[in-house]
Protein backbone atom coordinates (compact mmCIF):
# COMPACT_ATOMS: atom_id res chain seq x y z
CA UNK A 1 0.00 0.00 0.00
CA UNK A 2 1.44 3.36 -1.07
CA UNK A 3 -0.37 6.52 -0.07
CA UNK A 4 0.52 10.16 0.37
CA UNK A 5 -0.09 9.96 4.10
CA UNK A 6 1.92 9.83 7.28
CA UNK A 7 0.44 8.09 10.36
CA UNK A 8 -2.75 6.33 9.08
CA UNK A 9 -4.46 6.97 12.42
CA UNK A 10 -3.95 10.71 11.86
CA UNK A 11 -4.76 10.75 8.15
CA UNK A 12 -8.28 12.17 8.47
CA UNK A 13 -7.12 14.96 10.78
CA UNK A 14 -4.04 15.71 8.66
CA UNK A 15 -6.22 15.98 5.60
CA UNK A 16 -8.78 18.19 7.35
CA UNK A 17 -6.02 20.50 8.55
CA UNK A 18 -4.78 20.91 4.97
CA UNK A 19 -8.37 21.39 3.80
CA UNK A 20 -8.94 24.11 6.39
CA UNK A 21 -5.77 25.97 5.35
CA UNK A 22 -6.56 25.70 1.65
CA UNK A 23 -10.12 26.98 2.09
CA UNK A 24 -9.78 29.32 5.04
CA UNK A 25 -12.10 31.81 3.34
CA UNK A 26 -14.87 29.22 3.01
CA UNK A 27 -14.73 26.81 5.94
CA UNK A 28 -13.59 26.40 9.49
CA UNK A 29 -12.56 23.00 10.86
CA UNK A 30 -13.11 22.28 14.56
CA UNK A 31 -11.55 19.40 16.45
CA UNK A 32 -12.58 17.53 19.63
CA UNK A 33 -15.11 16.64 18.43
CA UNK A 34 -14.31 17.00 14.74
CA UNK A 35 -16.61 18.80 12.32
CA UNK A 36 -16.45 21.33 9.50
CA UNK A 37 -18.41 24.55 9.69
CA UNK A 38 -19.20 27.09 7.02
CA UNK A 39 -17.05 30.21 7.57
CA UNK A 40 -19.11 32.75 9.47
CA UNK A 41 -21.75 30.14 10.33
CA UNK A 42 -25.32 29.83 9.11
CA UNK A 43 -26.92 33.23 8.40
CA UNK A 44 -29.28 33.95 11.33
CA UNK A 45 -32.85 32.92 10.65
CA UNK A 46 -31.92 30.49 7.89
CA UNK A 47 -32.41 26.73 8.14
CA UNK A 48 -29.07 24.95 8.41
CA UNK A 49 -28.30 21.85 6.34
CA UNK A 50 -25.83 19.39 7.87
CA UNK A 51 -24.53 16.10 6.61
CA UNK A 52 -21.80 13.65 7.49
CA UNK A 53 -20.54 10.14 7.36
CA UNK A 54 -17.32 8.17 7.16
CA UNK A 55 -14.30 9.80 5.54
CA UNK A 56 -12.75 8.46 2.35
CA UNK A 57 -15.49 9.88 0.10
CA UNK A 58 -13.94 13.30 -0.44
CA UNK A 59 -15.01 15.87 -1.51
CA UNK A 60 -18.26 14.54 0.06
CA UNK A 61 -19.28 16.02 2.57
CA UNK A 62 -16.81 18.67 3.74
CA UNK A 63 -16.15 19.87 0.19
CA UNK A 64 -19.81 20.87 -0.06
CA UNK A 65 -19.79 23.18 2.93
CA UNK A 66 -20.49 26.76 1.89
CA UNK A 67 -23.18 29.19 0.76
CA UNK A 68 -25.96 27.40 -1.12
CA UNK A 69 -25.22 23.89 0.15
CA UNK A 70 -24.09 22.60 3.55
CA UNK A 71 -23.68 24.61 6.73
CA UNK A 72 -21.68 21.88 8.42
CA UNK A 73 -20.24 18.44 7.70
CA UNK A 74 -19.28 15.68 10.11
CA UNK A 75 -16.42 13.44 8.96
CA UNK A 76 -15.88 10.12 10.71
CA UNK A 77 -12.83 7.89 10.50
CA UNK A 78 -12.26 6.35 7.07
CA UNK A 79 -15.46 4.49 6.06
CA UNK A 80 -16.68 4.76 9.66
CA UNK A 81 -19.70 6.80 10.66
CA UNK A 82 -18.95 9.78 12.89
CA UNK A 83 -19.89 9.53 16.55
CA UNK A 84 -22.99 11.06 18.15
CA UNK A 85 -20.99 13.74 19.96
CA UNK A 86 -19.52 14.90 16.64
CA UNK A 87 -23.00 14.96 15.12
CA UNK A 88 -24.53 16.89 17.98
CA UNK A 89 -21.68 19.40 18.11
CA UNK A 90 -22.06 20.07 14.38
CA UNK A 91 -25.85 20.37 14.56
CA UNK A 92 -25.55 22.76 17.47
CA UNK A 93 -22.87 24.93 15.84
CA UNK A 94 -24.75 25.05 12.54
CA UNK A 95 -28.14 26.01 13.92
CA UNK A 96 -29.01 29.55 12.88
CA UNK A 97 -32.16 29.61 14.96
CA UNK A 98 -34.46 28.19 12.29
CA UNK A 99 -33.68 24.53 12.83
CA UNK A 100 -31.41 22.03 11.11
CA UNK A 101 -31.94 19.47 8.38
CA UNK A 102 -29.71 16.43 8.83
CA UNK A 103 -28.98 14.63 5.56
CA UNK A 104 -28.19 11.02 6.42
CA UNK A 105 -27.02 8.34 4.03
CA UNK A 106 -28.75 5.05 4.75
CA UNK A 107 -26.12 2.93 6.48
CA UNK A 108 -26.78 1.35 9.84
CA UNK A 109 -23.84 3.22 11.36
CA UNK A 110 -24.78 6.63 9.98
CA UNK A 111 -28.41 6.17 10.95
CA UNK A 112 -27.64 5.07 14.51
CA UNK A 113 -25.03 7.74 15.19
CA UNK A 114 -27.11 10.56 13.72
CA UNK A 115 -30.17 9.31 15.61
CA UNK A 116 -28.27 9.53 18.89
CA UNK A 117 -26.66 12.85 18.00
CA UNK A 118 -30.02 14.34 17.07
CA UNK A 119 -31.58 13.16 20.35
CA UNK A 120 -28.80 14.98 22.21
CA UNK A 121 -29.41 18.37 20.55
CA UNK A 122 -33.18 18.08 20.55
CA UNK A 123 -32.82 17.89 24.32
CA UNK A 124 -31.18 21.33 24.05
CA UNK A 125 -34.25 22.72 22.28
CA UNK A 126 -32.86 22.76 18.74
CA UNK A 127 -35.32 21.65 16.08
CA UNK A 128 -33.91 18.93 13.83
CA UNK A 129 -35.46 17.19 10.85
CA UNK A 130 -33.77 14.28 9.07
CA UNK A 131 -33.84 13.02 5.51
CA UNK A 132 -32.57 9.58 4.62
CA UNK A 133 -30.80 9.17 1.27
CA UNK A 134 -31.13 5.65 -0.14
CA UNK A 135 -30.51 5.91 -3.86
CA UNK A 136 -28.46 2.78 -4.54
CA UNK A 137 -30.52 0.42 -6.69
CA UNK A 138 -27.86 -2.28 -6.34
CA UNK A 139 -29.42 -3.13 -3.01
CA UNK A 140 -32.93 -4.41 -2.94
CA UNK A 141 -35.04 -2.41 -0.57
CA UNK A 142 -36.69 -5.25 1.23
CA UNK A 143 -37.23 -6.80 4.60
CA UNK A 144 -34.09 -8.82 4.00
CA UNK A 145 -31.61 -5.97 3.83
CA UNK A 146 -30.82 -2.84 5.79
CA UNK A 147 -32.48 -1.06 2.86
CA UNK A 148 -30.94 0.67 -0.12
CA UNK A 149 -27.70 2.51 0.60
CA UNK A 150 -27.11 6.23 0.24
CA UNK A 151 -24.48 6.91 -2.42
CA UNK A 152 -23.83 9.60 -5.05
CA UNK A 153 -27.44 10.85 -5.05
CA UNK A 154 -26.54 12.52 -1.76
CA UNK A 155 -24.96 15.38 -3.73
CA UNK A 156 -28.32 16.24 -5.28
CA UNK A 157 -30.11 16.12 -1.93
CA UNK A 158 -27.49 18.35 -0.30
CA UNK A 159 -27.41 20.82 -3.20
CA UNK A 160 -31.15 21.24 -3.45
CA UNK A 161 -31.80 21.31 0.30
CA UNK A 162 -29.02 23.87 0.61
CA UNK A 163 -30.54 26.03 -2.09
CA UNK A 164 -33.95 25.87 -0.45
CA UNK A 165 -32.46 26.86 2.90
CA UNK A 166 -30.52 29.68 1.26
CA UNK A 167 -33.65 31.18 -0.28
CA UNK A 168 -35.28 31.23 3.14
CA UNK A 169 -37.57 28.17 3.13
CA UNK A 170 -38.60 26.96 6.57
CA UNK A 171 -37.49 23.62 8.00
CA UNK A 172 -40.61 21.71 6.96
CA UNK A 173 -40.28 22.97 3.38
CA UNK A 174 -36.57 22.25 3.19
CA UNK A 175 -37.20 18.76 4.49
CA UNK A 176 -40.03 18.15 2.05
CA UNK A 177 -37.86 19.24 -0.88
CA UNK A 178 -34.99 17.06 0.30
CA UNK A 179 -37.38 14.14 0.50
CA UNK A 180 -38.65 14.86 -3.00
CA UNK A 181 -35.08 14.67 -4.26
CA UNK A 182 -34.38 11.53 -2.27
CA UNK A 183 -37.52 9.96 -3.72
CA UNK A 184 -36.55 10.85 -7.28
CA UNK A 185 -32.86 9.97 -7.33
CA UNK A 186 -31.30 6.56 -8.03
CA UNK A 187 -27.73 5.39 -8.56
CA UNK A 188 -25.66 2.34 -9.37
CA UNK A 189 -21.89 1.89 -9.28
CA UNK A 190 -19.10 -0.27 -10.64
CA UNK A 191 -15.57 -0.94 -9.41
CA UNK A 192 -12.66 -1.72 -11.71
CA UNK A 193 -10.30 -1.98 -8.75
CA UNK A 194 -10.83 -2.20 -5.01
CA UNK A 195 -9.55 0.41 -2.59
CA UNK A 196 -7.35 0.07 0.45
CA UNK A 197 -8.32 1.56 3.81
CA UNK A 198 -5.10 3.12 5.20
CA UNK A 199 -5.09 1.31 8.55
CA UNK A 200 -6.15 -2.00 6.98
CA UNK A 201 -3.36 -1.97 4.42
CA UNK A 202 -4.92 -4.33 1.89
CA UNK A 203 -7.80 -4.00 -0.58
CA UNK A 204 -11.40 -4.65 0.45
CA UNK A 205 -11.81 -7.30 -2.23
CA UNK A 206 -9.82 -8.80 -5.07
CA UNK A 207 -10.67 -8.54 -8.73
CA UNK A 208 -9.02 -10.48 -11.52
CA UNK A 209 -7.47 -8.50 -14.37
CA UNK A 210 -10.54 -8.92 -16.53
CA UNK A 211 -13.26 -8.60 -13.88
CA UNK A 212 -15.34 -5.67 -12.72
CA UNK A 213 -17.62 -5.61 -9.70
CA UNK A 214 -21.14 -4.34 -10.36
CA UNK A 215 -23.33 -2.85 -7.66
CA UNK A 216 -20.66 -1.70 -5.25
CA UNK A 217 -21.28 0.69 -2.40
CA UNK A 218 -18.92 3.50 -1.50
CA UNK A 219 -17.12 1.84 1.40
CA UNK A 220 -14.86 -0.54 -0.44
CA UNK A 221 -17.31 -3.34 0.32
CA UNK A 222 -17.89 -5.93 -2.43
CA UNK A 223 -20.82 -5.48 -4.81
CA UNK A 224 -23.58 -7.79 -5.97
CA UNK A 225 -21.91 -9.63 -8.81
CA UNK A 226 -18.84 -9.79 -10.97
CA UNK A 227 -18.74 -9.69 -14.72
CA UNK A 228 -15.98 -9.82 -17.26
CA UNK A 229 -14.79 -6.31 -18.11
CA UNK A 230 -16.43 -5.32 -21.33
CA UNK A 231 -16.03 -1.67 -22.20
CA UNK A 232 -17.82 1.55 -21.40
CA UNK A 233 -20.95 0.86 -23.43
CA UNK A 234 -21.75 -2.43 -21.77
CA UNK A 235 -20.90 -1.25 -18.26
CA UNK A 236 -22.90 1.96 -18.63
CA UNK A 237 -25.88 -0.10 -19.71
CA UNK A 238 -25.57 -2.34 -16.65
CA UNK A 239 -25.54 0.74 -14.42
CA UNK A 240 -28.12 2.88 -16.15
CA UNK A 241 -30.83 0.32 -16.85
CA UNK A 242 -31.65 -0.62 -13.25
CA UNK A 243 -31.64 3.07 -12.39
CA UNK A 244 -34.09 3.97 -15.13
CA UNK A 245 -36.27 0.93 -14.36
CA UNK A 246 -36.41 1.70 -10.68
CA UNK A 247 -37.36 5.32 -11.33
CA UNK A 248 -39.92 4.20 -13.91
CA UNK A 249 -38.72 6.93 -16.26
CA UNK A 250 -40.82 7.45 -19.36
CA UNK A 251 -40.30 9.32 -22.61
CA UNK A 252 -40.56 13.08 -22.28
CA UNK A 253 -39.35 13.26 -18.69
CA UNK A 254 -36.52 15.60 -17.76
CA UNK A 255 -33.61 14.48 -15.62
CA UNK A 256 -30.29 15.40 -14.13
CA UNK A 257 -27.57 12.95 -15.21
CA UNK A 258 -24.62 12.65 -12.85
CA UNK A 259 -21.63 10.48 -13.68
CA UNK A 260 -19.48 10.14 -10.61
CA UNK A 261 -15.93 8.84 -10.37
CA UNK A 262 -14.91 6.60 -7.48
CA UNK A 263 -11.62 8.44 -6.93
CA UNK A 264 -9.05 6.70 -9.14
CA UNK A 265 -10.76 7.00 -12.50
CA UNK A 266 -9.63 9.66 -14.99
CA UNK A 267 -12.13 12.40 -15.83
CA UNK A 268 -11.79 11.47 -19.51
CA UNK A 269 -13.34 8.05 -18.79
CA UNK A 270 -16.21 9.63 -16.87
CA UNK A 271 -17.04 11.67 -19.97
CA UNK A 272 -17.04 8.51 -22.07
CA UNK A 273 -19.56 6.94 -19.68
CA UNK A 274 -21.54 10.18 -19.63
CA UNK A 275 -21.71 10.16 -23.44
CA UNK A 276 -22.89 6.54 -23.50
CA UNK A 277 -25.54 7.24 -20.87
CA UNK A 278 -26.78 10.22 -22.88
CA UNK A 279 -27.20 8.04 -25.97
CA UNK A 280 -29.13 5.43 -23.98
CA UNK A 281 -31.40 7.99 -22.32
CA UNK A 282 -32.03 9.65 -25.70
CA UNK A 283 -33.11 6.26 -27.08
CA UNK A 284 -35.72 6.11 -24.34
CA UNK A 285 -36.84 9.66 -25.03
CA UNK A 286 -35.63 10.89 -21.66
CA UNK A 287 -34.31 14.43 -21.81
CA UNK A 288 -31.14 15.31 -19.91
CA UNK A 289 -31.53 18.94 -18.92
CA UNK A 290 -28.86 19.14 -16.23
CA UNK A 291 -25.50 17.39 -15.97
CA UNK A 292 -22.74 16.76 -13.50
CA UNK A 293 -19.51 14.86 -14.19
CA UNK A 294 -16.75 14.46 -11.64
CA UNK A 295 -15.32 12.46 -8.76
CA UNK A 296 -17.50 13.84 -5.99
CA UNK A 297 -18.55 10.77 -3.96
CA UNK A 298 -15.49 8.59 -3.90
CA UNK A 299 -14.08 5.45 -2.30
CA UNK A 300 -10.47 6.48 -1.70
CA UNK A 301 -8.41 5.52 -4.78
CA UNK A 302 -10.93 3.04 -6.19
CA UNK A 303 -11.21 2.94 -9.97
CA UNK A 304 -14.79 2.90 -11.09
CA UNK A 305 -17.83 5.08 -11.53
CA UNK A 306 -21.47 5.42 -10.69
CA UNK A 307 -24.39 6.70 -12.70
CA UNK A 308 -27.04 8.77 -10.94
CA UNK A 309 -30.32 10.01 -12.40
CA UNK A 310 -32.58 12.54 -10.70
CA UNK A 311 -36.09 13.19 -11.95
CA UNK A 312 -36.42 16.95 -12.36
CA UNK A 313 -39.33 19.34 -12.27
CA UNK A 314 -39.29 23.13 -12.61
CA UNK A 315 -38.73 23.79 -8.91
CA UNK A 316 -35.97 21.22 -8.46
CA UNK A 317 -34.27 22.54 -11.59
CA UNK A 318 -34.39 26.09 -10.27
CA UNK A 319 -32.94 24.99 -6.94
CA UNK A 320 -30.23 22.96 -8.70
CA UNK A 321 -29.30 26.06 -10.71
CA UNK A 322 -29.21 28.36 -7.67
CA UNK A 323 -25.74 29.70 -6.85
CA UNK A 324 -23.45 27.46 -4.82
CA UNK A 325 -20.00 28.41 -3.52
CA UNK A 326 -18.23 25.53 -1.86
CA UNK A 327 -14.70 24.15 -2.24
CA UNK A 328 -15.88 21.34 -4.52
CA UNK A 329 -19.02 22.63 -6.23
CA UNK A 330 -19.54 26.19 -7.38
CA UNK A 331 -21.63 28.06 -9.90
Amino acid sequence: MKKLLDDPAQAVDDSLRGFALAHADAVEVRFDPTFVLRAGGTPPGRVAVVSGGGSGHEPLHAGFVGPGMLDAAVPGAVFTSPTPDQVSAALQAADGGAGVLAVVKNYTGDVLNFETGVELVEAEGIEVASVLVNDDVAVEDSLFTAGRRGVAGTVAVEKIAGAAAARGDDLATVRALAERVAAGVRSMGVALTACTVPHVGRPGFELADDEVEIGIGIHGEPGRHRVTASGAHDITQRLLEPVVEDLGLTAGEQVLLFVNGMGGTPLSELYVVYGRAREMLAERGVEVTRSLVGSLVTSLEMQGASVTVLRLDAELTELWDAPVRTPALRW
Partner: protein
Amino acid sequence: MTVLDVAWAERWMQTAATDVRAARDELTELDRRVGDGDHGVNMDRGLSAVVERLDDPALPPRETVGQVLRLAATTLMSTVGGAAGPLYGTALLRASKVTDRPDLSASGVVSMMEAAVEGIVARGHASVGEKTMVDAWQPAAEAAERAEDAEDVADVLRAAAEAAAAGAEATVPLVATKGRASYLAERSAGTQDPGARSSAIILAAAVTAAEGRDA
Protein backbone atom coordinates in the same frame (compact mmCIF):
# COMPACT_ATOMS: atom_id res chain seq x y z
CA MET B 1 -16.15 -17.30 45.70
CA THR B 2 -15.65 -14.74 43.01
CA VAL B 3 -16.59 -11.13 43.70
CA LEU B 4 -17.72 -9.04 40.74
CA ASP B 5 -16.83 -5.65 42.14
CA VAL B 6 -15.60 -2.36 40.69
CA ALA B 7 -12.06 -3.74 40.35
CA TRP B 8 -13.49 -6.64 38.38
CA ALA B 9 -15.43 -4.34 36.09
CA GLU B 10 -12.33 -2.28 35.40
CA ARG B 11 -10.27 -5.44 34.81
CA TRP B 12 -13.03 -6.60 32.44
CA MET B 13 -12.67 -3.51 30.29
CA GLN B 14 -8.86 -3.71 30.38
CA THR B 15 -8.89 -7.38 29.41
CA ALA B 16 -11.42 -6.70 26.68
CA ALA B 17 -9.13 -3.98 25.30
CA THR B 18 -6.14 -6.32 25.31
CA ASP B 19 -8.04 -9.22 23.77
CA VAL B 20 -9.68 -7.10 21.08
CA ARG B 21 -6.33 -5.62 20.17
CA ALA B 22 -4.93 -9.14 19.85
CA ALA B 23 -7.89 -10.04 17.64
CA ARG B 24 -7.85 -6.81 15.67
CA ASP B 25 -6.59 -8.30 12.43
CA GLU B 26 -9.00 -11.21 12.69
CA LEU B 27 -11.94 -8.81 13.17
CA THR B 28 -10.71 -6.61 10.33
CA GLU B 29 -10.50 -9.61 8.06
CA LEU B 30 -14.03 -10.78 8.94
CA ASP B 31 -15.37 -7.26 8.31
CA ARG B 32 -13.35 -6.96 5.11
CA ARG B 33 -15.15 -10.06 3.85
CA VAL B 34 -18.70 -9.09 4.74
CA GLY B 35 -18.47 -5.38 5.49
CA ASP B 36 -16.01 -2.56 5.07
CA GLY B 37 -13.01 -3.79 7.02
CA ASP B 38 -13.06 -1.32 9.89
CA HIS B 39 -14.54 -3.27 12.82
CA GLY B 40 -11.19 -4.33 14.30
CA VAL B 41 -9.75 -0.84 14.16
CA ASN B 42 -12.97 0.76 15.43
CA MET B 43 -13.21 -1.50 18.48
CA ASP B 44 -9.50 -1.26 19.22
CA ARG B 45 -9.67 2.53 19.09
CA GLY B 46 -12.74 2.59 21.34
CA LEU B 47 -11.55 0.14 24.00
CA SER B 48 -8.11 1.78 24.13
CA ALA B 49 -9.87 5.06 24.87
CA VAL B 50 -11.84 3.34 27.65
CA VAL B 51 -8.62 2.06 29.24
CA GLU B 52 -7.04 5.48 28.94
CA ARG B 53 -9.93 7.08 30.78
CA LEU B 54 -9.93 4.36 33.44
CA ASP B 55 -6.22 5.14 33.98
CA ASP B 56 -6.78 8.89 34.05
CA PRO B 57 -5.94 10.07 37.61
CA ALA B 58 -7.87 13.30 36.98
CA LEU B 59 -11.18 11.38 36.88
CA PRO B 60 -12.98 10.48 40.13
CA PRO B 61 -12.58 6.80 41.12
CA ARG B 62 -15.58 4.58 40.29
CA GLU B 63 -17.64 3.37 43.23
CA THR B 64 -20.12 1.11 41.48
CA VAL B 65 -19.95 -1.40 38.64
CA GLY B 66 -22.49 0.79 36.87
CA GLN B 67 -20.12 3.75 36.95
CA VAL B 68 -17.47 1.72 35.18
CA LEU B 69 -19.95 0.57 32.54
CA ARG B 70 -21.26 4.13 32.09
CA LEU B 71 -17.73 5.44 31.53
CA ALA B 72 -17.17 2.66 28.98
CA ALA B 73 -20.51 3.34 27.29
CA THR B 74 -19.97 7.07 26.75
CA THR B 75 -16.37 6.54 25.70
CA LEU B 76 -17.28 3.88 23.14
CA MET B 77 -20.16 6.03 21.91
CA SER B 78 -17.81 8.94 21.23
CA THR B 79 -14.85 7.03 19.82
CA VAL B 80 -16.00 3.92 17.94
CA GLY B 81 -18.33 5.31 15.28
CA GLY B 82 -19.79 2.98 12.68
CA ALA B 83 -22.69 0.69 13.58
CA ALA B 84 -20.87 -0.88 16.49
CA GLY B 85 -20.31 2.38 18.39
CA PRO B 86 -23.93 3.23 19.22
CA LEU B 87 -24.80 -0.45 19.64
CA TYR B 88 -22.10 -1.24 22.21
CA GLY B 89 -22.64 2.21 23.71
CA THR B 90 -26.34 1.66 24.21
CA ALA B 91 -25.80 -1.90 25.49
CA LEU B 92 -23.40 -0.74 28.19
CA LEU B 93 -25.43 2.36 29.02
CA ARG B 94 -28.52 0.24 29.67
CA ALA B 95 -26.40 -2.28 31.57
CA SER B 96 -24.95 0.49 33.71
CA LYS B 97 -28.41 1.54 34.84
CA VAL B 98 -29.13 -1.84 36.47
CA THR B 99 -25.66 -2.25 38.00
CA ASP B 100 -25.32 0.82 40.19
CA ARG B 101 -23.97 -1.10 43.16
CA PRO B 102 -20.50 -1.99 44.51
CA ASP B 103 -20.70 -5.58 43.33
CA LEU B 104 -22.93 -7.92 41.36
CA SER B 105 -24.84 -10.96 42.52
CA ALA B 106 -25.78 -13.74 40.09
CA SER B 107 -29.11 -12.07 39.45
CA GLY B 108 -27.24 -8.79 38.99
CA VAL B 109 -25.28 -10.40 36.17
CA VAL B 110 -28.50 -11.67 34.60
CA SER B 111 -30.08 -8.20 34.76
CA MET B 112 -26.96 -6.67 33.28
CA MET B 113 -27.02 -9.08 30.35
CA GLU B 114 -30.72 -8.58 29.73
CA ALA B 115 -30.41 -4.81 29.81
CA ALA B 116 -27.53 -4.96 27.34
CA VAL B 117 -29.50 -7.09 24.88
CA GLU B 118 -32.50 -4.81 25.18
CA GLY B 119 -30.29 -1.82 24.39
CA ILE B 120 -28.86 -3.44 21.26
CA VAL B 121 -32.29 -4.45 20.01
CA ALA B 122 -33.80 -1.06 20.80
CA ARG B 123 -31.17 0.66 18.67
CA GLY B 124 -30.63 -1.84 15.89
CA HIS B 125 -34.01 -3.60 15.59
CA ALA B 126 -32.32 -6.90 14.79
CA SER B 127 -33.41 -10.27 16.13
CA VAL B 128 -31.59 -13.58 16.42
CA GLY B 129 -30.62 -15.10 13.06
CA GLU B 130 -29.99 -11.84 11.22
CA LYS B 131 -26.21 -12.32 11.54
CA THR B 132 -25.46 -9.49 13.94
CA MET B 133 -24.07 -9.09 17.45
CA VAL B 134 -27.55 -9.97 18.71
CA ASP B 135 -26.68 -13.57 17.78
CA ALA B 136 -24.01 -13.46 20.50
CA TRP B 137 -25.73 -11.34 23.15
CA GLN B 138 -29.19 -12.91 23.09
CA PRO B 139 -28.08 -16.53 23.77
CA ALA B 140 -25.58 -15.14 26.27
CA ALA B 141 -28.35 -13.43 28.24
CA GLU B 142 -30.49 -16.54 28.07
CA ALA B 143 -27.63 -18.74 29.27
CA ALA B 144 -26.95 -16.36 32.14
CA GLU B 145 -30.57 -16.63 33.19
CA ARG B 146 -30.40 -20.43 33.10
CA ALA B 147 -27.21 -20.34 35.20
CA GLU B 148 -28.60 -17.85 37.74
CA ASP B 149 -28.61 -20.45 40.55
CA ALA B 150 -24.91 -21.34 40.13
CA GLU B 151 -22.78 -21.35 43.30
CA ASP B 152 -20.23 -18.94 41.92
CA VAL B 153 -21.21 -15.73 40.04
CA ALA B 154 -18.24 -16.45 37.77
CA ASP B 155 -20.18 -19.48 36.51
CA VAL B 156 -23.03 -17.22 35.41
CA LEU B 157 -20.59 -15.14 33.42
CA ARG B 158 -18.94 -18.29 32.09
CA ALA B 159 -22.25 -19.65 30.84
CA ALA B 160 -22.96 -16.34 29.11
CA ALA B 161 -19.53 -16.19 27.48
CA GLU B 162 -19.74 -19.78 26.24
CA ALA B 163 -23.17 -19.16 24.75
CA ALA B 164 -21.90 -15.97 23.11
CA ALA B 165 -19.01 -17.86 21.53
CA ALA B 166 -21.35 -20.56 20.26
CA GLY B 167 -23.79 -17.95 19.01
CA ALA B 168 -21.04 -16.09 17.16
CA GLU B 169 -19.82 -19.37 15.63
CA ALA B 170 -23.37 -20.08 14.53
CA THR B 171 -23.47 -16.90 12.46
CA VAL B 172 -21.02 -18.39 9.96
CA PRO B 173 -23.57 -20.04 7.64
CA LEU B 174 -26.18 -17.30 8.05
CA VAL B 175 -27.20 -14.79 5.38
CA ALA B 176 -27.17 -11.29 6.86
CA THR B 177 -30.36 -9.23 6.77
CA LYS B 178 -29.22 -6.34 8.96
CA GLY B 179 -26.18 -4.05 8.82
CA ARG B 180 -23.68 -3.64 6.06
CA ALA B 181 -23.29 -7.38 5.43
CA SER B 182 -26.90 -7.54 4.24
CA TYR B 183 -25.84 -5.81 0.99
CA LEU B 184 -23.99 -8.98 0.08
CA ALA B 185 -27.10 -11.15 0.43
CA GLU B 186 -26.06 -14.81 -0.16
CA ARG B 187 -22.42 -13.82 -0.41
CA SER B 188 -22.45 -12.97 3.31
CA ALA B 189 -22.81 -16.67 4.18
CA GLY B 190 -19.61 -18.49 5.13
CA THR B 191 -18.06 -15.74 7.26
CA GLN B 192 -18.58 -15.13 10.97
CA ASP B 193 -20.24 -11.84 11.81
CA PRO B 194 -17.50 -9.47 13.04
CA GLY B 195 -19.72 -7.82 15.66
CA ALA B 196 -20.83 -11.19 17.04
CA ARG B 197 -17.19 -12.23 17.21
CA SER B 198 -16.10 -9.07 19.06
CA SER B 199 -19.05 -9.57 21.43
CA ALA B 200 -17.87 -13.10 22.22
CA ILE B 201 -14.34 -11.80 22.87
CA ILE B 202 -15.62 -9.07 25.20
CA LEU B 203 -17.83 -11.46 27.16
CA ALA B 204 -14.96 -13.94 27.45
CA ALA B 205 -12.92 -11.06 28.89
CA ALA B 206 -15.51 -10.71 31.67
CA VAL B 207 -14.75 -14.29 32.70
CA THR B 208 -10.99 -13.83 32.48
CA ALA B 209 -11.31 -10.73 34.64
CA ALA B 210 -13.42 -12.67 37.15
CA GLU B 211 -10.75 -15.37 37.31
CA GLY B 212 -8.31 -12.66 38.38
CA ARG B 213 -6.12 -13.05 35.30
CA ASP B 214 -6.22 -9.44 34.33
CA ALA B 215 -4.56 -7.63 31.42
